């Protein structure tokens, strides 16, 4: 059984759930589109070196993780500190040792982890076909085409998730995000040199 004291802290953390969810979709979308862009670029340029493509994608994935984690941590930390300071002024006490103080320390870490891990995990899923092909596993199409298909599925699922949150028709919400991804692919194909 969760103690009442812990429940108080958990309720503060629960308040951060919506923010974490927003960050997860925003940065997950960011990461997926980045990978989709890279895969499309590799495909149209006729890249044969899978090792080079994997390293480039992993570099981008790690960069997205570091960028997502640090930017969310810094901005959330600043927001929580400001919120804590305003509440301290209203109550005329130091809240560092209270659940509010604990929340202002743990919530930015939690939200930053979601913001960093979301694009990293999606990127790794999208790069997976390249890994498989690199290790000799035969794929039905070019590994880049399979990766593009995986990226489109990820984007569709992100759209479906958004539709679920906003209580919209899931198929329409999913297709809308796929449409954005297709615009990206078309734009990259237009600039093919």
């Amino acid at each position, binding site marked *: 059984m969760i103690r009442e004291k812990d429940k108080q802290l958990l309720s503060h953390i629960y308040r951060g759930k919506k923010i974490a969810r927003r960050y997860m979709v925003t940065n997950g979308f960011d990461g997926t589109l980045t990978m989709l862009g890279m895969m499309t670029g590799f495909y149209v340029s006729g890249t044969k070196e899978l090792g080079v493509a994997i390293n480039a994608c992993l570099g981008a994935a790690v960069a997205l993780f570091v960028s997502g984690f640090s930017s969310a941590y810094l901005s959330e930390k600043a927001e929580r500190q400001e919120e804590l300071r*305003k509440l301290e002024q*209203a109550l*005329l006490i130091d809240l560092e040792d209270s659940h509010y103080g604990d929340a202002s320390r743990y919530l930015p870490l939690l939200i930053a982890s979601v913001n960093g891990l979301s694009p990293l995990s999606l990127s790794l899923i999208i790069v997976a076909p390249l890994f498989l092909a690199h290790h000799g596993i035969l794929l039905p199409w070019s590994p880049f085409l399979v990766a593009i298909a995986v990226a489109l599925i990820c984007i569709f699922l992100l759209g479906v998730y958004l539709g679920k949150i906003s209580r919209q028709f899931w198929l329409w919400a999913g297709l809308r995000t796929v449409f954005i991804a297709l615009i990206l692919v078309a734009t990259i194909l237009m600039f093919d040199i």
Partner: protein
Amino acid sequence: MTTTRKIVLDVLKPHKPNGVDFATALAQLSPDYHVRLSVVEMDAKTESVIVVLEGKNIAFDSVSELIKKMGASIHSIDEVEVHGSETI
């Protein structure tokens, strides 16, 4: 040996935790605690509440520590009921 049977506190607390959670947390400090909470003033970020705590022997230090942990502060101790050893 004396026992504290009742304490009435004037507390300034943030809106969260709400009155129910606040009183529940205090009541869970000991199975014999009986807590009554009434809001006397409401502000944009805070609310003043009167907490009436009754029990067989109230441990004021742990009550005060928990109130502080929940982000509230005790403004004043408005009423206390302490029994001497012979009344136990």
